[in-house]
């Protein structure tokens, strides 16, 4: 039995996950909590957010996120992919900034609209 704090929403439910019984979860107040509890002990994942350089825009940086959660162990490797990325303005929310991160089938996508200067 492992105790976890659910990070899906700000409520922060105190979860109990039973590894010996198919990772069944108690203490959750919604189905997302059950899924998080099971995943956290089998294959923990996170959505990663950062920024990249923008050229010719009204702002210097555009924020980005992974289009879906990625394995925790890949976070720093994924971050390094953004190190030298510069994208031209205009940038629209949802634009793909880095395609198929580390072969995971997940992209870095823009989370900010940056108009042309």
């Amino acid at each position, binding site marked *: 039995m492992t105790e976890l704090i659910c990070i899906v929403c*700000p409520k922060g439910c105190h979860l109990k996950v039973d590894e010996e019984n198919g990772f069944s979860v108690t203490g959750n107040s919604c189905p997302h909590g059950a899924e998080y509890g099971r995943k956290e002990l089998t294959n923990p994942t996170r959505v990663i957010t950062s920024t990249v350089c923008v050229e010719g825009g009204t702002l*210097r*940086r555009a924020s980005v996120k992974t289009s879906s959660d990625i394995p925790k162990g890949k976070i720093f490797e994924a*971050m390094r992919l953004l190190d030298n990325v510069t994208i031209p303005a205009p940038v629209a929310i949802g634009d793909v900034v880095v395609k198929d991160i580390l072969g995971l089938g997940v992209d870095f996508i823009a989370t900010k609209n940056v108009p042309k200067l």
Partner: protein
Amino acid sequence: MNETLYDVIVVGGGPAGLAAALEAAKEGAGKVLILERNNELGGILNQCIHNGFGLQFFKEELTGPEYASRFIDKLADAGVEVMLGAMVLDVSADKTVHAMSREHGYMQLRAKSVVLNMGCRERTRGAIAIPGDRPAGVFTAGAAQLYMNIEGYMVGKRVVILGSGDIGLIMARRMTLEGAKVLACVELMPYSNGLNRNIVQCLNDYDIPLYLSHTIVDIKGDKRVEQVVVAKVDEKRNPIPGTEITFDCDTVLLSVGLIPENELSRQAGVEIDRRTNGPVVYENMETSIPGVFASGNVVHVHDLVDFVTQESQRAGRAAALYAKNGEPQGPCIAVENGSAVTYTVPQKIRTENVDKFVEIFFRVNFVYTNMVIQISSGGEVLARFKREHMAPGEMEKVAFPKALFPKIRDGKITVSVVKEEDAE
């Protein structure tokens, strides 16, 4: 001189102002104007690039800029006017708004109702009086967030964070991802002031130690921060000699609380609640000045933008109704805080203005388990709400039904929190 009479003028274009303006327009206010001092709308959301916004309101997980854009994108269709780079200097009780902008110069704008949405400001090193040298490298967490996420500057390499507010926790993760080493997060209180989920996903995920009941007792450095000395504190929060730990670091981030930004409200003569540092408000977010409303962090500091949005929609709706119909009348009850409760919002309720129930927001003064929230009046408990877990860092909310209003004595109710076994 701009002689337009606006129905509603919204001061501030952050999450609160955006929601208030859109809702006012939706409620039928014909001329709605947002005055924003920055060059873009969205307020603090623009620098909050992490995800986790909107789970309550949109039922999906958004980043700050995405959350803001959901509202910004609707302004044009709603017919809401926006002035950027416009600094409001004064709001008078007759609802004349004095503002300056590079584009329009000095303006006197008249409105039937005004919504104050100025948000809040971070407490600084001066406000908490940390001893030691005064080198560069001491930032509030939000300032560091602005430098990193908007300007693209890295503010330091080895970091100690004082305070465990959510912005500090978020910055611990952010700086770690960008290659900094966050040595410690130091919290004066025996519990964290941030959300549990942020302790987990910002500190625990990256093995950043959280020192509870500790504080910074010295900052050393000539030009730049070189060392920070941290010590354990006793129950009276005094440092205990002999418990000092020294960290070699170049940066200190402060996440030690937020203060509602009420200069304009005070100038206008709005009554301020000493407990929240924000305006005293009615159930519809109206302040002590008829037709002047307030919502969001300028009223009380929220944990979640979703709640700011909901509160501001109420303010916007009420502002539009005021512009149309004038002041609601009728009897009023006062909401007071009892044991373990530090404040309530609203502080006053006009009973005839309530539909089925009134939502009362408050915070508790410590971490508790298995508690009962009691709403009482004239010595009688009118309503009870159970809670398994309560903490100062988590805003609480109860819905008090209108059906119970006839039982209220002496025009006031008290919200208190007691242990389950002590509940009446």
